[in-house]
């Protein structure tokens, strides 16, 4: 008894020593760095604090989704950068998913040529550094576009030029009502779906949920157009002569080439990884599952929709989440081609102007950390929802 007790205490002490040493080492490093930082900042006459966020930024940003000019504060500039990062990430994720799924499914096609082309797409775009792809699109490919006066015209409503892509601008009246109706439609679809699931599980009835959902999504917003005074008109870009040789487009929305290059490179690069995930997911569903489904008389589409995809998604989603996270983090490469994302605006220009390295770099890093954590939390939730429900 006594011996055992001593042994246990011995083990406790044995466990305690390495832990205490690690914590001590970590603390001393932190304290060392902190004191140094304090001395250095004291020498330069700056004090740690976030008050500078309220000061006037006095620099311009080339592309902003919210109102901004030099007279706004650094905090506002941060927000502009953050929104731009989110914008390019969302666009990138959207297209990367589409390309990735198409390429991933193509790799499994029984058409030899298609499978080969998809394979080479993956091999080529995965093995070239993303930054080189961004440079290629921005400095080489998009620079080869024509000047505004002979821009590539899409039916005269949209123009692709070296200075960017000019698209029509949406002009809404009563946009809020429209937005509310879309939200209402989405909520309605949620209830329809859960009702359909209940019907299927209790009575074995198959309701055409997709058709009903689509109809709801179209009909409810349509009503706002007809009865609630929502209107939508377009403002088309029009070529305008500035001087004898300089032309530009007026009206419409200009999508800057930096955004195009970044979105192209990000989505094409990340798509290769998503394609591999999709392929692995579909291959991961056992052959027996398909055969069993076929033997109970499901047709090819039903097998795909009811048996293969639900199981494949479980394999596909976790690594794809990681790719979405990577894409969001990789969007920071925007700084290399001067797309005004959070790194360029905040960790670049604002840092140069204020010299507050510690505060600004920590804010930037914390922002990315919280973006990463929120995406992974959402995906964990989704993953749990999709997981096998044991009965």
């Amino acid at each position, binding site marked *: 008894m006594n011996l055992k007790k001593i042994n246990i205490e011995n083990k406790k002490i044995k466990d305690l020593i390495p*832990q205490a040493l*690690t914590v001590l080492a970590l603390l001393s490093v932190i304290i060392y760095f902190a004191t140094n930082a304090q001395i250095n900042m004291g020498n330069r006459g700056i004090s740690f604090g976030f008050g500078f966020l309220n000061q006037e930024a006095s620099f311009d940003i080339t592309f902003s989704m919210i109102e901004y000019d030099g007279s706004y504060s650094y905090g506002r500039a941060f927000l502009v950068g953050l929104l731009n990062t989110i914008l390019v990430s969302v666009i990138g994720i959207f297209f990367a998913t589409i390309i990735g799924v198409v390429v991933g499914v193509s790799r499994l096609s029984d*058409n030899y040529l*298609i499978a080969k082309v998809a394979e080479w797409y993956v091999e080529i775009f995965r*093995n070239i550094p993303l930054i080189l792809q961004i*440079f*290629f699109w921005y400095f080489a490919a998009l620079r080869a576009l024509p000047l505004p006066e002979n821009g590539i015209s899409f039916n005269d409503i949209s123009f692709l030029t070296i200075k960017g892509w000019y698209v029509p601008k949406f002009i809404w009246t009563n946009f809020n009502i429209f937005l509310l109706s879309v939200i209402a439609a989405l909520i309605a679809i949620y209830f329809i779906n859960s009702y359909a699931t209940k019907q299927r599980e209790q009575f074995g009835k198959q309701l055409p949920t997709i058709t009903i959902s689509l109809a709801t999504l179209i009909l409810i917003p349509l009503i706002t157009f007809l009865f609630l005074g929502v209107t939508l008109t377009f403002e088309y870009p029009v070529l305008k002569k500035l001087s004898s040789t300089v032309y530009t487009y007026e009206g419409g929305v200009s999508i800057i080439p930096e955004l195009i290059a970044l979105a192209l490179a990000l989505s094409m690069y990340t798509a290769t990884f998503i394609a591999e995930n999709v392929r692995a997911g579909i291959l991961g569903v056992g052959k027996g599952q398909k055969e069993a489904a076929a033997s109970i008389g499901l047709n090819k589409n039903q097998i795909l929709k009811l048996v293969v995809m639900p199981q494949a998604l479980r394999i596909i989603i976790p690594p794809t989440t990681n790719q979405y996270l990577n894409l969001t983090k990789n969007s920071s*490469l925007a700084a290399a081609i001067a797309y005004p994302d959070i790194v360029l605006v905040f*960790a670049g220009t604002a840092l140069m102007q204020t010299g507050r390295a510690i505060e600004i770099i920590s804010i930037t890093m914390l922002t990315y950390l919280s973006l990463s954590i929120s995406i992974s939390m959402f995906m964990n939730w989704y993953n749990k929802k999709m997981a096998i429900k044991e009965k």
Partner: protein
Amino acid sequence: MNLIAKPTKENIKTYVPFGLSLVSISFLDVFINAFFNFNLMAFLPSQLGYFLPLILGFIGFYLIRIEFSGVRYLDILNKNINSNNFNALLTLFTIFIIIKSIPPMLDWFILEANFIGNSKEDCTGDGACWVFIKVWFNRFMYGLYPDAEQWRINTAFLILFSIVGASFFVSEKFKKYFILFLVFVFPFLGIKLISGGSFGLEYVESAAWGGLSLTFIISAFAILFCFPIGVILALGRRSSLPAIKYISIGFIELWRGVPLITVLFMSAVMFPMFLPDGTFIDKLIRVLIAITLFEAAYMAEVVRGGLQALPKGQYEAAKSLGMGYWKMNALIILPQALKLVIPGIANTLLALVKDTPLIFVVGLMELAGMIGLAKTNPKWLGMAMEGYVFAGLVFWIICYAMSRYSQNLEKKLSTER
């Protein structure tokens, strides 16, 4: 009605030759159109002439789609590219696009390209100006490293490659020493040779290093250091000691949550603030530390995957033999766990190599950075395409070779029972 009877084995004699000739005509038309810019179907109305190859090819493919024809090559063809109407269309589109895109590519890369000369004015053709790459080749490889001293980089890499090459031919017994030398001695010898400052070698500061050799140097050192740190972090995360476990988790998740570019910014502008005034750490070393720690966090997660995949019995068996923690991990657990995650390790190392161009944000110029520098040279404006195609090709070859090697290694080391 007989005319459009379903192709079967009975009418194979008439359908197959006819179908094959239709398909050939459609390919020939596209081919001649693409390569000789001559339109065979010019006599037809323009819209029809445009779609005719597609229509002919489609009909042709329909006619030769005979199930169980008994002709071996026909069956293989049908099975692989012509199993139904949709597949036939996909095949046609793919082949048309490939045929159409060959001539412009060929023109740009070779036929219209310029190889001879040594200034931009020598590039008179419409294609690529490879003269640019030729003139700047030394810079792309060695950065701003002085020309007279470049033999030192060459020697270092020559020794490296000859040792690696030789280690494939010597017996297992000596191989061990080769690897120990490569890992523990050579990196420091090599870096001494390149930086100089002793043995009568002229000192070359790290700011002058650059080009592809810098890519290799940074990748090699980061790989060397990130691997052991990653393993230790992975073990730490699996540790039963709470303090070590949570410190490891915090460290790993912190690095994994932020983009490398902000880490590099941190090493460049924030890190000097944390050091006593006046201390100066070389930029290259700071960047190396940043990249190493960053990739070590990813490596840790990969290794952890391997550790988790091992059955509990392995741990228990090792313990029952009386092995301590370190002995158990070094002799039983890690060899098996690492082998399981070779693809993951290879992917992390590949990501590391692909991340090296990012060091341009702190002003170090490896291959991509040097191209950025060269293309803004007033004498060589407008060479971005050539430069980035070249850099892309170089990186592609490196990364593709690495991924192929890892696939082979995985096969070689697999001990499937």
